[in-house]
């Protein structure tokens, strides 16, 4: 009962933290899309490059987030951004690389060679082929990668409260340090609901972005 | 021996009950191959799967060598029946040897003996055991996988085998090779086999008996020759196709159709004798043989020559011969292709045993019809 009173009484604060939380994730994943999708497309040209890039990205993602935050402090302190918003965004960008690069790479390299040949045969240039054939076909898979990145990084951002980045994790960190179950549960529930809600919204976006001709295949 | 008695299977679908198999009775003698043939959805596969109780019949009885299958535990029953499916179904997690020995292992047979048996079976289909025993299915070509699929069903030496379009997934050329190989094995093994197919040519080639199905009913059950000669009704007739006479060619061996009473010429015979032989036979060509009885040439009726000319000087070389063991289809194809209205038929040593003419082919088909 206590908890519900606390929640309703602090709706404004919850909203504020949620907004901050979402802004970290979306700014970072937005930047990650701009870097990771081109990388994913580029490495389809070379198996060796793909191996190195994917290995590096998958190693990156195994490093626990709090350890990554910690490792960034000495690196970013010299320019005055050891803690706060910036390292959180950078960590999310790094974590987003693997799911987006890997899915882009897999999707583009799995495009039916016959379609590619047909596109070349009709006289499309490399960029026309990418834009008109390969990327549209790959979008459902790339979107799945973006969704994975966003959902995972909502969790990472919750931990970023410990390096002063703000967001819904603040409730959890305060709840723990003040032994206050009201803040603890508020933080846990709100961050969970945020993750679930954004996952659903992105699923909807993915459906809207997917060419109607592909709907049968991409529905899983 | 396999006997089906009034076998019926009714499936309950959302659109009401469907009689997939409707009162089918047939009896297959031991050591014969019965091909269940028909368009898709005709109930042939369902009928087959009721034999090893993958599908339980709604009514009717199945006897294998006189034993009621209902009275046998389904697990034991299946272990005693070889089973080959179209997708082959080799277990990718097991090596070739372990795949072949699945049923022997289930039966708890001695491992050493079963592995030796697997090696024997591999050799039987021309695959080197040393190279293949330890491989995994993904390391085999399609044709090799198919062969392993078949010998896996043979591993426990079951008297009865069920084969569901076993060669359906292979390209036509390899399919012919594997079919021939399988028929050779069957000659030695004499298994009782139920074989599902939708390919008439395959059925005519493999079957001792063909069972034609349409929407769950058995339309005709007969030997391929009899089926092609006397289709029981218009459905069977249209299913067999209007070229069914040609399909029968495959069922008659050259030795049954060739003329054995004829005069052969020798190279040193005078041309005059050649002329006499040609006139008496009424054929456009006469065959010339050497001292061992091997055909060396053929003499045409219109060859112009002087009185003292020898047959050997005038004869043209033989463009084709046919083995007496071959089927008529091959013989006729070679008669057409080489423009040989008189085709020499030879034995294994290449000696002339008879000749085949268009008339003799037609006559032999007619006499086969009369035989029935």
């Amino acid at each position, binding site marked *: 009962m206590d908890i519900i009173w606390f929640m309703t009484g602090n709706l404004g604060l919850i909203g504020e933290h949620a907004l901050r939380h979402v802004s970290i994730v979306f700014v970072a994943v937005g930047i990650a899309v701009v870097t990771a999708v081109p990388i994913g497309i580029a490495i389809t040209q070379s198996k*060796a490059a793909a191996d190195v890039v994917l290995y590096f990205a998958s190693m990156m993602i195994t490093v626990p987030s709090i350890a990554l935050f910690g490792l960034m402090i*000495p690196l970013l302190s010299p320019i005055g951004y050891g803690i706060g918003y910036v390292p959180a965004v950078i960590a999310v960008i790094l974590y987003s690389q693997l799911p987006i690069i890997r899915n882009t790479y897999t999707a583009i390299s799995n495009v039916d060679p016959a379609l590619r040949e047909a596109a070349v045969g009709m006289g499309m240039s490399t960029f026309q082929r990418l834009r008109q054939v390969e990327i549209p076909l790959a979008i459902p898979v790339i979107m799945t990668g973006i969704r994975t990145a966003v959902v995972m990084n909502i*969790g990472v951002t919750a931990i970023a409260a*410990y390096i002063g980045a703000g967001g819904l994790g603040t409730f959890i960190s305060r709840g723990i340090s003040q032994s206050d179950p009201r803040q603890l549960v508020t933080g846990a529930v709100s961050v*969970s609901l945020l993750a679930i809600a954004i996952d659903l919204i992105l699923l909807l976006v993915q459906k809207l972005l997917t060419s109607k001709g592909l709907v049968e295949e991409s529905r899983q | 021996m396999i006997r089906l008695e009034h076998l019926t299977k009714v499936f309950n679908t959302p659109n009401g009950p469907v009689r997939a198999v409707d009162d089918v009775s047939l009896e297959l003698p031991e050591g014969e191959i019965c091909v269940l043939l028909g368009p898709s959805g005709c109930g042939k596969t369902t009928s087959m799967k009721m034999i090893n109780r993958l599908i339980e019949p709604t009514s009717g009885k199945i006897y294998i060598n006189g034993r009621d299958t209902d009275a046998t535990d389904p697990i034991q029953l299946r272990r005693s029946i070889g089973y080959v499916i179209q997708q082959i*179904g080799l*277990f*990718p*997690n097991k090596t070739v040897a372990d795949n072949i020995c699945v049923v022997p292992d289930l039966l708890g047979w001695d491992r050493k003996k079963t592995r030796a048996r697997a090696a024997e079976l591999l050799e039987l289909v021309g695959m080197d055991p040393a190279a293949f025993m330890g491989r995994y299915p993904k390391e085999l070509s399609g*044709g090799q996988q198919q062969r392993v699929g078949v010998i896996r069903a043979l591993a426990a030496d079951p008297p009865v085998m069920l084969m569901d379009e076993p060669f359906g997934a292979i390209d036509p050329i390899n399919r012919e090779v594997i079919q021939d190989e399988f028929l050779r094995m069957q000659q030695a093994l004499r298994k009782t086999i139920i074989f599902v197919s939708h390919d008439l040519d395959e059925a005519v080639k493999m079957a001792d008996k063909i069972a034609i199905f349409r929407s769950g009913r058995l339309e005709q059950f007969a030997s391929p020759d009899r089926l092609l000669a006397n289709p029981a009704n218009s459905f069977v007739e249209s299913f067999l196709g209007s070229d069914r006479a040609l399909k029968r060619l495959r069922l008659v061996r050259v030795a049954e159709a060739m003329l054995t009473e004829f005069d052969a010429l020798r190279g040193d015979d005078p041309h005059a004798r050649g002329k006499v032989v040609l006139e008496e036979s009424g054929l456009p060509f006469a065959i010339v043989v050497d001292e061992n009885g091997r055909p060396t040439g053929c003499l045409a009726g219109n060859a112009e020559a002087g009185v003292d000319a020898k047959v050997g000087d005038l004869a043209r070389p033989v463009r084709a011969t046919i083995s007496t063991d071959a089927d008529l289809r091959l013989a006729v194809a070679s008669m057409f292709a080489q423009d040989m209205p008189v085709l020499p038929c030879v034995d294994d040593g290449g000696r002339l045993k008879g000749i085949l003419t268009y008339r003799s082919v037609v006559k032999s088909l007619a006499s086969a019809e009369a035989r029935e």
Partner: protein
Amino acid sequence: MSEATTASVQVQKSPASARWVTSIRTPVLVWLVIALAVAIWISLSDMPAEILTYREDIIYLGGQHVELVAWSGGLAILTGVPIGALLSRPAFQRVSEALLQGFNVGATIPTLAILALSMTLLGIGTVPAVFGLWAATLLPIVRNTYAGLRAVPQHLIEAACGMGMTPAQMFWRVELPNALFVIFGGVRTALAICVGSAPLVFLIGAGGLGELIFTGIALDELPMMLAGAIPTALLAVVTDFTVGRLQYYLVPRGINPLR
């Protein structure tokens, strides 16, 4: 038979050995670069010496850390695989689809939130920590076990049934081995989550290397923080590498796309 011989040649020059070379070369390359960077860092800074003053803490807390991961990861494998297997049985088909949907939603819940809820329910200490990590680790294992078993081709099951295997034999000899690769994939993901979340359990009073990291951040004590962060990161990478190797060697060659 000529077909057999040509195919055997093909198989012999199959790229299995070549793939092995690239799969080992890439990590070596990456690690060389990292080792080089670390060597330069060590030679230019006195930080490593400062970090080493926490040696005893690292060993003690590291042990605790590994123990927590072993308990929660081990329990998650021991419970997750049977649950996934059970759900894949035809008898559970109706329930399992709905349940899996629920699990998918559950998988989006951040680990920190799971740990916070675990603490609200069970208090502080090792038990809520292991419980929380177990819950976060469980889902990928259940999901992959279920998906792997359901993905075993129907014709394999038909062949097994037609040859007279009992349902138990079909499960142990055909279904489970053929799902093993996918199950291992789930275990790998799950253990990465488990190891990655393990530093957080310090927050609910279960110790581990997180103690050095969080305290180091709070006190702005860089060497202390790195004394926790570096071993944590190494442990995560080593665990992932080990499970990856185990997957490579334990899953039979016939069904292992990596070999």
